[in-house]
């Protein structure tokens, strides 16, 4: 379909939202699982089982962090094995979806 279809690689996109104060634990886990890349957005707000987290509220100072990680299926498999037992503890949200990574031609 695209001009150079062979340049797409099927990947898994993992998207995690957790309380910002737990971010370091998560990143540590990632590095232990030897992931080769992730992206972090901090100072996110939201609403979940622990109530509202308003990023503009400078009294309570509650933030979420959004983490996006793209990897192949094997790595995702490995990662989720490590991640899943901790998910309840971490709270927030963990998604997985399919995507194509555009690779260097």
């Amino acid at each position, binding site marked *: 379909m695209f001009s150079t279809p062979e340049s797409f690689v099927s990947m898994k996109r993992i998207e995690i939202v957790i309380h910002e104060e737990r971010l370091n634990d998560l990143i540590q886990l990632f590095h232990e699982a030897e992931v080769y890349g992730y992206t972090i957005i901090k100072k996110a707000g939201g609403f979940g089982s622990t109530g509202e987290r308003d990023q503009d509220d400078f009294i*309570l100072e509650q933030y979420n962090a959004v983490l996006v990680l793209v990897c192949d299926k094997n790595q995702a498999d490995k990662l989720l094995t490590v991640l899943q037992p901790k998910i309840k503890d971490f709270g927030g949200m963990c998604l997985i979806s399919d995507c194509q990574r555009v690779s260097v031609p």
Partner: protein
Amino acid sequence: MSISSLLVPAILFFALGMFACLIKSDLKFPPDMHRMIVIYLLIGIGLHGGKELAAADMGDALSAVWAALAFGFGLPIIAYIVLRGLGKIDPLNAAAISAHYGSVSAGTYMTAVAFLAGIGVTYEAYPIIMLAIMESPAIMIGLVLAGYSRRVTGGESKADKGMMKHLLIDAFTNGSILLLFGSMAIGSVVSEPSYHKIEPFFELIFMGALCIFLCDMGMEAGKRLSEFKSVGVFLVGFGIAMPLFGAACGLFVGHFLLGYSIGGITLVAVLAASCSYIAVPPAMRLAIPEANPSFYLTLSLGVTFPFNVVVGIPMYYSAAQYLHATYYPW
């Protein structure tokens, strides 16, 4: 005391902030500005307190410390009993709210200082020492009350333990408290000429910076105030009665036990009457996640804080005057 003594810039800027919120103005201060001014004010208060401490009589300073600890531990327990007994508030919310009333509001305290300065009344150095001390016990007693409540209601207790220890440490490593104590320590050891170099930044321009802080807090108070319907009549009443009760304790202690001047008594009353919105709310959010923040924030920021700033301070001052005139009428 005339109406003009209320026309203190700090109080007026607080009112301006509330007014901006009331007319739904789009006025908004950057959150980092708030954080920066808080850092600045805490250091300024600490340095000033330390300087005073260095020159203070140790016996008198110790009395002030004891009084501060008594307020910090005592007021939350009384608040908890009232909230549980009279208000039938659930234990965890009661614990979270109570903790706020043991602590103090640096903003209210500084407004009182500005008020006294505006009418030319002097005061002792000790209340600022009390201010620095009262934040920690309040957080600790909040944790204890929460632990007690959980045991009563049969909540988790194992996870609790680790949490408890973690939070007790927190009560001392808390950034605001550390800044306050650290600056106090620094203020008490630096030499006069060294202090002189940093005085323009931390003292000379302090009252002006406080105005901007209070304008911001006025907006915040206005925002919280608008939620007071969801909080219920009892709690709003508590948010006014509790500072009055605290002030009464403060007046008593300041006059009879500590023997301060009118200005000093007023400040002790303000300390006992005010409740925290800097260190305690985030600590309670972490320690008692089950409690509804809109309860304690509406009370502390939306009810008690504006009440103290606009009505309380002059009232406590009048009471201090009366006390002084009645019991030392010579």
